[in-house]
């Protein structure tokens, strides 16, 4: 059964609290118990508590599949890019190197690449993926477009990304603040203690969105 068309995956790094619940829950998935297929990184712990969860973005034209010499990575009709297929995968690691989001991982002991398949065992029967179910801040959200619009009026989903000359469109959406941020996030207590606040505007290029330059 395919994943229902109206259910989508949304990532909102602004909400992420770095708790790693998603990673732990991923290891509980019945198809790959003990291994997490997703990632969570501090951007720069020395200067911020900001973390970013990374699940497979399920690209419309998956680079991992394009570079696979064994044709082991398939995208099902519902847009989910599946883990490498066992008899085909030669564990060459091309996909690991090529994925612009850094998602696939090579399991040398088993001679196979494994990656996030949006909990296909769950999402294909209409359930939420494990990570998005447990995420305490709902930085990982799985639901309909109507739900996300109703629940997140302050941000907008984007799914087009630019990596050098490569433009990538994905099934999974990233939430980006709608309005220009009025102030930067808090990163240094010393700055918050100053009577005169310091400006820390950072510009982020967003593609395919009316708010071309979004300050975060």
């Amino acid at each position, binding site marked *: 059964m395919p994943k229902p068309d109206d259910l989508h995956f949304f990532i909102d790094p602004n909400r992420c609290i*770095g708790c790693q*619940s998603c990673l732990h829950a991923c290891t509980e998935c019945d198809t790959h118990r003990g291994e997490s297929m997703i990632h969570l990184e501090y951007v720069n712990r020395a200067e911020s508590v900001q973390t970013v969860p990374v699940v497979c973005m399920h690209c419309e034209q998956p680079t991992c599949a394009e570079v696979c010499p064994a044709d082991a990575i398939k995208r099902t009709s519902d847009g989910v890019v599946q883990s490498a297929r066992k008899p085909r995968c030669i564990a060459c690691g091309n996909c690991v190197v090529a994925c612009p989001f850094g998602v696939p991982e090579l399991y040398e002991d088993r001679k196979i690449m494994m990656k996030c398949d949006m909990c296909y065992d769950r999402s294909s029967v209409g359930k939420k993926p494990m990570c998005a179910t447990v995420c305490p801040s709902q930085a990982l959200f799985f639901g309909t477009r109507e739900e996300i619009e109703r629940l997140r009026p302050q941000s907008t989903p984007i799914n087009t990304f630019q990596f050098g000359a490569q433009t990538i469109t994905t099934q999974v959406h990233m939430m980006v603040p709608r309005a220009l941020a009025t102030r930067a996030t808090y990163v240094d207590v010393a700055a918050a203690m100053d009577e005169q606040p310091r400006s820390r505007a950072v510009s982020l290029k967003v593609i395919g969105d009316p708010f071309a330059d979004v300050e975060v």
Partner: protein
Amino acid sequence: MAQVPVDPIRIIEGFGPHLSAMTGTRLSTSVEPDRLVKTHCCFCGQQCGIQLKVRGNEVIGFEPWEEFPFNHGMLCPKGVKRYLQGAHPDRLTHALRRDPSSPSGFSRLPYGDAIARVAGEIARLQQAHGAGAIAVLSGASLTTEKTYLLGKFARVCLKTPFIDYNGRLCMVSAGAANKKAFGIDRATSPWSDMIGTNVIWVAGSNVAECSPITTNYIWQAREQGAKVIVQDPRITPIARTCDLYLPVKPGRDAALFAGVLQIMIERDWLDHEFIRDCTVGFEQVAEYCREWTLSRTAEVTGVPQRAIMQAAEWWGTAKTSFLLHARGIEHHSNGVQNSLGTINLVLASGRIGKPNSGYGTIVGQANGQGGREHGQKCDQLPGWRDISNPEHRRHIAGVWGIDEKELPGPGVDAYELFRKIDRGEIKGLISICFNPKVSLPDNNFVTRCLEKLEFFAAIDFFLNDTAWHADVVLPGSLHEEDEGTVTQVEGRIIKINKAVDCPGEARQDWRIIQDIAQALGRPHGFAFTEPQEIFEELRVASKGGVADYSGVTYEKVTQQLGVFWPCYSEDPKTGKPISDHQGTPRLFERGSYNPVAKGTGPFYFPDGRARFNVADYRPPVDDGSEEYPIYLTTGRVVSQFLSGTQTRRIGPLVRQYAEPRIEMHPRLAEKLGIADGDWATAETRRGTITLRAQVVTTIRPDTIFIPYHWAGRKSANQLTVAAQDPISKIPQYKVCGCRVRKADAAPDYAAILEPQQ
């Protein structure tokens, strides 16, 4: 004789903490569970609903429980991995006795012999030194049934006034403040009330790490337009994206609240009508606040004037608001005053007892709420009754079938109890669900006290660090091996369901307590055959008290997915029996009736009015000084819980944050010549600790932070001060003077112990 029987390293070899891992059926992708058991997490006060996958007599995994209304399937890492505490190599499956000739320091004892030994020692000590020579320490992670039974056991069976619990380290400052201000001690509103509010003020709560599920409520409120104010010496994950961050200096919270209230008074951002009709005492508070000018407040608190002004403006002009606080402002020798300071801000705004407006402390432990209501506290009887109140005593003595004169009076707080052990006044101790050797401040003193005990019996499922000193260890039950109720953060009573049986000779805790009573020849009132019977007695005992559970049944809790107390079996207005009272999700609604105010007003005092209390600022005990110029503050990390007895045994959680580190700002680190990852030594008047430094900008440059979940030489509480709030007796964990230097060398333990040990 409660000396540690052998070299601690030998005890650790025998009893851990070792790490559990996903192996066997827990790793298999083909093994199906026999059944799913709907229950709750065993850790914090959020009490997330969870389904445990059970196969045979083993919990092999979990499945989210999305229908449970508080967390909708959400879980933090502790909840996800909680099941790995079961079938653990360190699990105590038999009774133990202290045995210095055994390599691990303990040897097995048949359960019956162990019970006989405990009863014999209690009888011997009580005969020689009186009933008060025995004390009981209990905990707020136990079900309400067990906490009720323990209070009854101490008073009726042991006839000792000396029982207290680890909630003394946790929620008592908030509890005392609530009692003084509202006459009832509970969060005012369900968390769903936050969605749609204008302002949320989070005072001293690392929400993202200590109560992760609350994060989604706060951020959902922000999506709908709420401004979020966070007051903390550290930029925790909830502070990073908040609208206003108040970088308060540790121990200065009451000053901040007074300064903000002063601005509200000056700008007339007050609800005069509410203050006039529903409160008393505003004038005295206003008088006190007069000295807290903006410049003085900024100077004392370390928060810039612009931020204080902004906070006052947002709070003062909001139409709806929520104020949440936690241990950050409560763990102080001024903890009650700090909590009262927040309540004054709430009362001055009049925003309480309405939809989208509320106030509450975020409880830390599983049963942080229920565990503080039914009598395991030294001055309390069931139903949130007062052990010094003659009428309350008569009611409870009647339920327990004893003469009121036989009922002991108030005991002492958990720390004072150790001072009594030190002075030789208490000679025997029974402990359950408490690990004071790790969790109490200045814990080298606690260790010396444990060594002085003539007899110590510990009930536990793992051999915790305190139980190393025990003469007899009785194997108790894990959360999933018993049933009962707990009351979570919102005041919602929920049902814990049994998933598996106790292994070996381990027993459900309430059975162990009853077995001791039986062996003592004092079985009267300890013949319950299941937790529901205990709950039925608790309903009767709580009836007519402020924490009235009389209308709560297991069936109602299961059907409604929780019941908010008070829940009455008789209409408080007419006295007529009612069976369908749904409970009280929101307190203090205008026009509401409660049995104390009897219609005079919404608050639980005879005049129905809330109390403003002067919440004066006092500098912390053992404050920063020339000799100890840096502030030490302590707290939690998301992957560990309390003293780590459970979470330091769960492999995936330990790997997430394996060992404590000293968090410091790069400015401080540079001054001290310490780089990230260096060994650093922190020293206070009580002790030293050597840990690796973590250099981050997310903490005040005058403050260091150490998480407290570890034991022995890694325990932050070697350093903390045993100063206590004069009213609540909560210890001042959140600040003391300290100095830091680059360590001369790696600590000795580094080569010997695993990270979690």
